[in-house]
């Protein structure tokens, strides 16, 4: 691809954020080259503030200089703006699209706050958080059976929208497991999801952007220290 400014793709983000990871996986899946602009933890760049003035949060995708914000919005944008590239991110069938969108919203409603609590990033009842995550994963195990129809991923034989959305939490699952010394993605309780997670992590578009659990734990500790020192830290 020539370095044509009109087509240039940049991602403003952080390596530890699941929401940022989604965008990188989607671009890699589509074979779209991009420049990654790592934000400094605890500080927001001028570019971030200018390109996402409403939320001031990562990720932001800049396509030919135009910003797209909110990870689920960005995923659909990547699918539509690079519609010629395969594989597709969302399913083709309208009903399947609605089902995948439903479960993506479900995951984003049930998991982030509970996982932050388990990782000690926010104060809260850890036992309740663990239960909430377990209940959500039990639902998602059933959803996986229904959506995958015996294939390897929610989307079929390759990863898609729902795989990317849920899969982006696997790093946090593993970090939470280290911190709490309890399983989160449990082979006994959710065998299909456990196997799916391993396949997801091994995927060529995921391997290089899935954060290491140990690094995430260290990152969380450093961020908590930075948060204590500076009230304006970005959400992670």
């Amino acid at each position, binding site marked *: 691809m020539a370095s044509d400014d009109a087509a240039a793709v940049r991602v403003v983000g952080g390596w530890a954020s699941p929401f940022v990871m989604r965008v990188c996986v989607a671009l890699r899946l589509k074979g779209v080259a991009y420049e990654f602009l790592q934000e400094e933890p605890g500080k927001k760049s001028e570019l971030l503030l200018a390109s996402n003035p*409403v939320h001031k949060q990562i990720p932001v995708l800049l396509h030919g200089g135009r910003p797209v914000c909110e990870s689920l919005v960005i995923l659909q944008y990547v699918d539509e703006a690079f519609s010629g590239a395969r594989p597709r991110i969302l399913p083709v069938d309208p*009903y399947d699209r609605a089902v995948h969108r439903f479960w993506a919203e479900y995951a984003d409603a049930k998991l982030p706050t509970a996982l932050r609590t388990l990782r000690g990033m926010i104060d809260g009842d850890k036992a309740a958080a663990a239960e909430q995550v377990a209940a959500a994963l039990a639902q998602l195990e059933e959803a996986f059976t229904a959506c995958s129809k015996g294939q390897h991923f929610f989307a079929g034989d390759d990863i898609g929208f729902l795989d990317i959305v849920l899969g982006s939490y696997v790093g946090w699952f593993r970090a939470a497991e280290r911190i709490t010394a309890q399983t989160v993605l449990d082979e006994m309780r959710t065998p299909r999801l456990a196997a799916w997670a391993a396949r997801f992590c091994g995927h060529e578009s995921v391997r290089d952007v899935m954060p290491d659990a140990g690094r995430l734990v260290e990152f969380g500790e450093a961020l908590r220290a930075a948060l204590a020192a500076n009230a304006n830290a970005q959400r992670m």
Partner: protein
Amino acid sequence: MAEKGVKVFGMWASPMVIRVEWALRLKGVEYEYVDEDLANKSADLLRYNPVTKKVPVLVHDGKPIAESTIIVEYIDEAWKGGYPIMPADPYERARARFWARFAEEKCNAALYPIFTTTGEAQRKAVHEAQQCLKTLETALEGKKFFGGDAVGYLDIVVGWYAHWLPVVEEVIGASIVTDEELPLMKAWFDRFLAVDVVKAALPDRDRLVAANKARREQLLSA
């Protein structure tokens, strides 16, 4: 699967449900409407939406879909040849989805406290909500509707403000959307409510005022 046709499970006073009805009416799709008593949900609703058990649920040829904004996009895609709800351009689609999420997550959250507070706390809540709506209003600049010359996805998602906010204003005895604070939004309220398919699905205003008055009394005495 013998089940054919379109069914909407809803509740007469729900702003989320009306989005689905507006979308179906824009497409000219006939549907059966099932009004739910949310304190006593039907077996059908619980069967079709066991995960969240909420309205609205759209059932199309026996297949259920939940979550109003997801249902609206489904309607646009399933009846592709009809009225275009989403913009055609990917960047415009992204902007419409972005603002819809902003309205759902930020504006709705800012509006709710107005309803449950009084006095100084309410004044603060009104101010916060106005700031939120002012941000949303920027998406209207230079346009008749959020969708441009005609009603689109974002109008459908936030359109409930046009009918419900004046009701809230009457119930609490204070203004939120005024010519001084939110001129573009106020003008858009009038244009939006004049659209035929919008008018056709609105719940009775007096009934809505009465229901909201009762609800507010209940919340304030809790």
